[in-house]
């Protein structure tokens, strides 16, 4: 009996090692970005924010998000943000091919630069509000542009995407959630 126990003890390093392997493998296989934060605002009302106008474009407020006809996206972008340029074509696609209403928040940007980008690359937004000093976006818990929120009919935040929306994100994450919201009250 005593010997058996000793036998078992000699395996402890191996057991500890295997536990560590499992621990690390989980992170490797799931490929979650540990620096990506979950939003605390999921299933909460979209916080009230006050945005200024970008000349020539419709501005929006919280009123637009509440009692809407369908789900909408709120995308935080800026002309100086490189990943925003990457996701731009997918925003265009969602706006044009899937008829999704996208509201843009122009984050800490020079308004002229923002207008130039919209002229040059096209405008995927239904309406745009500018947050020039970045203080309004703090209410949204924004910590890195681009970020995209999916809002349901009642103005509740259902999902937050941090970083650019790529093809995979659009098809496998954003569109399925939007379809799910669309079917909720049919």
């Amino acid at each position, binding site marked *: 009996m005593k010997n058996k126990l000793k036998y078992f003890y000699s395996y402890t390093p191996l057991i500890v090692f295997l536990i560590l392997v499992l621990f690390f493998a989980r992170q490797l296989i799931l490929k979650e970005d540990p620096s990506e*934060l979950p*939003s*605390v605002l999921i299933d909460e009302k979209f916080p009230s924010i006050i945005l200024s106008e970008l000349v020539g474009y419709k501005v929006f407020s919280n009123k637009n998000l509440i009692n809407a006809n369908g789900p909408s996206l709120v995308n935080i972008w800026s002309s100086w943000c490189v990943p925003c340029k990457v996701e731009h074509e997918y925003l265009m696609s969602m706006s044009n091919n899937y008829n999704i209403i996208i509201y843009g928040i122009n984050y800490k940007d020079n308004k002229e630069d923002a207008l130039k980008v919209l002229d040059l690359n096209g405008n995927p937004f239904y309406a745009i509000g500018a947050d020039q*000093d970045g*203080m309004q976006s*703090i209410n949204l*818990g924004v*910590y*890195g542009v681009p970020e995209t929120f999916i809002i349901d009919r009642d103005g509740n935040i259902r999902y937050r995407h941090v970083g650019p929306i790529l093809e995979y994100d659009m098809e496998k994450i954003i569109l399925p959630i939007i379809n799910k919201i669309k079917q909720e009250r049919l």
Partner: protein
Amino acid sequence: MTTIIKFIFCFFIISNSVLADTNNKAAYELYKELRCLVCQNQSLLESNAPLALDLKKVVMDKIELGQSKNEIKKFLVDRYGEFILLKPKYSIQNILLWLGPILFLLIGFFVTFVFLRKQSMYKEEPLPLTNEEENSLKKILDNNVS
């Protein structure tokens, strides 16, 4: 008259700077306890990321409005989650986080205690020599002496 005005003026300057000092101190303490969400293991105090500068401004503005440290922390936690606090809250969810190290220390003490006790238990006293052994020992010793 002028001396009185001067005196009042000085008083204002001093009281203002004292106020600014206490505000700065409160802000400094808060900056140290809040996480920069861009460079995630730095505090706001250490970080110069644009978002960190904005958050510092928010904190400073709120302190100047007379809000307490807890109110400001709650404001930020409501928006960014508990992750923004570098020092986790003392709450039921975090109990393992806070008591874990003590728990492991106690486990370590326990294991050491059991191990040492076992060792001292198995330390057997040598059996006294039998008569036969005693005789042969004597023989060997005698032989060596002669």
